[in-house]
């Protein structure tokens, strides 16, 4: 079994492993943020701090042959699905050892063994693709399920509405998950959208829909499982709205100074890491000392990953000309 598949299996049911993965994602994002801030990494990045429970809950419920079409804010989803921190971080650093050979970057992670389709940097762009994957499963007559995960901003783009409608009339085995982290880029959702509960938009497409607490992994798992079960058994698509909160700005350049006072602190009181810690202590019988040890260990691991990735090889010029067409086309 590959390291990625082992990592995926580890988080299926173990509350300690799930907590550990959440710490890993948080440490990973904090390191990425520091590396961008110091100019060590170029381009842009979109952090998922605050959205870890949704990523891990989702990954713990899906099979590895259920493809996930996700967005440019997917470091956490990729790590939750099993991508190794080395593979993700070296991709973000543009190294040959990255999951896209250093040609994708922060916004484009991919690992097909784990079901992670190339993540899209276009709002809503992954939604029709997930529906298409589900169409293939329906035609092939298998029981695989496709998942599209996207932000609240995507509910205002045409792809969202067209895809929901298409998936509904064709009864496709697909689960749509709106990760409503309250902000679409720099705009609070209420400034751009006349409704608060985005999942009700599925009502227009006669599609089952519900909201869930995206900060609580048990709630996420239960909700996603019910939608996956429906899709797998031929019951068609579901729209889930996971209520989360983006602790960071939209991207590297954004300090998120537009937040109402107290909003961030209020959400941080329900930080998924706190909830996962409580749960690991309660169900997994972790002690305070165990937790402290784990945090130190994960921080060290991610620090070591940074060092490892920094010394990894760069892609070659030859790589730039590969994998564009099925065979080389000279134009």
């Amino acid at each position, binding site marked *: 079994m590959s390291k990625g598949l082992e990592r995926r299996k580890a988080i299926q049911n173990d509350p300690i492993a799930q907590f550990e993965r959440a710490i890993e994602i948080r440490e990973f994002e904090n390191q990425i943020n520091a590396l961008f801030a110091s100019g060590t990494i170029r381009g842009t990045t979109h952090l998922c701090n605050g959205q870890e429970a949704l990523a891990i809950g989702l990954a713990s419920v899906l099979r590895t042959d259920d493809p996930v079409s996700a967005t440019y804010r997917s470091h956490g989803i990729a790590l939750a699905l099993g991508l190794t921190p080395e593979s993700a971080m070296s991709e973000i650093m543009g190294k040959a050892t990255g999951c896209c050979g250093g040609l994708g970057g922060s916004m484009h992670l991919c690992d097909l063994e784990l079901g992670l389709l190339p993540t899209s940097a276009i709002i809503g762009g992954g939604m029709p*693709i997930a*529906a*298409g994957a589900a*169409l*293939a499963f329906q035609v092939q007559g298998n029981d695989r399920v496709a998942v599209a995960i996207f932000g609240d901003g995507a509910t205002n783009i045409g792809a969202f509405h067209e895809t929901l409608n298409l998936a509904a009339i064709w009864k496709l085995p697909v689960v749509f998950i709106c990760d409503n982290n309250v902000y679409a880029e720099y705009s609070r959702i209420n400034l751009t959208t006349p409704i608060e509960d985005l999942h009700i938009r599925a009502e227009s497409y006669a599609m089952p829909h519900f909201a869930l607490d995206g900060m609580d992994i048990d709630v996420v798992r239960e909700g996603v499982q019910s939608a996956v079960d429906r899709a797998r058994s031929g019951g068609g698509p579901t729209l889930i709205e996971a209520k989360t909160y983006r602790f960071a700005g939209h991207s590297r350049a954004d300090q998120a100074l537009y937040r109402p006072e107290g909003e961030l602190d209020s959400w941080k009181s329900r930080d998924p890491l706190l909830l996962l810690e409580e749960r690991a202590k309660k169900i997994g019988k972790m002690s305070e000392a165990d937790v402290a040890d784990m945090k130190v260990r994960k921080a060290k691991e991610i620090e070591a990953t940074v060092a490892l990735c920094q010394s990894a090889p760069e892609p070659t010029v030859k790589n730039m000309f590969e994998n564009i067409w099925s065979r080389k086309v000279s134009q």
Partner: protein
Amino acid sequence: MPAMRVRQAIATAIADEMRTDPTVIVFGEDIAAAEGPFKTSEGLLEEFGPIRVRDTPISEMAFTGAAVGAATMGLKPVIEIMFMEFLGVALDQLVTEGAKMRYLSSGKLSVPMVVRASVGGGLGFGCQHSQTLENWVAATPGLKVLSPSDSQSAYSLLRAAIQDPDPVMFLEPRVAYAERGEVDTNLKMEIGKARVVKPGKDLTIVALGQMTNVARQAAATSGIDIEIVDLCTIVPWDKKTVFESVKKTGRLVVVEEQPESGGWGSEIVAAVSAEFFGDLKAAPIRITCPSVPVPYNGGLEARFLPSPTEVNYQIDQLMATGKAPQPWWIREGF
């Protein structure tokens, strides 16, 4: 060999591929029950059933993206964009998602899909249903772009497109749908290979789609011994065949159904100029449409499109002077 209309050649090519390969599915607006607004999917629903032959809502973005997703999971979707202009709302899925899948997956994902679209003027559909718009898709590495000109090339190229592991944009000249021609269903045509449809020794015309027929009409009444190359594929275009022809004739005229700026013919002229600079007997030129929207009025639309008369005028001038003649709209002061 049976004579088929171009639209029948297209439906036959799809049916033949669907019989050979159970992973081929087709969908688009009104292509199943109604058998296509241009009858290019006649008989498909009846033979292959509603799982593989589907009507879609008017949602080009969703169903183009669905083709991308289905292709990544092992199907070979053939989708129909009724008028090329309708791809505008779905371009993201083809250009930014579909064409990048192989690249971002380090070669692990293939996107074997065909986007068929009807293109071109001549039928009075006005400025939003008459463009060719090849340049929307010709500058995207990862895509292949084809355009047949008659029943044989429609049949053979479409089969090649469906079999191809890459996303293919298949531009069908709408005006040709009703044209009849013989089709040898055993004849294979390769993507990236042009056809010499009329040999000649004095001048090379490179044409595409319905302009191939315009070139034929021009050549039939010309005193010049013209060689006509039907390009068939814009990406990747067949440098070898074009270069061999120009090497022989020393003169190049590209006939393009496109506004003057940004057309595919510029690629041909640039490459030929670079390759044969100093050896050409005349300036390599393009005959295009003027850079205006396609007019609705029948008389104006006929002026808009390159005509056999204009092609012959340009060629006669070129033969006489060796210099690029002015296009008609400059000659007439527009």
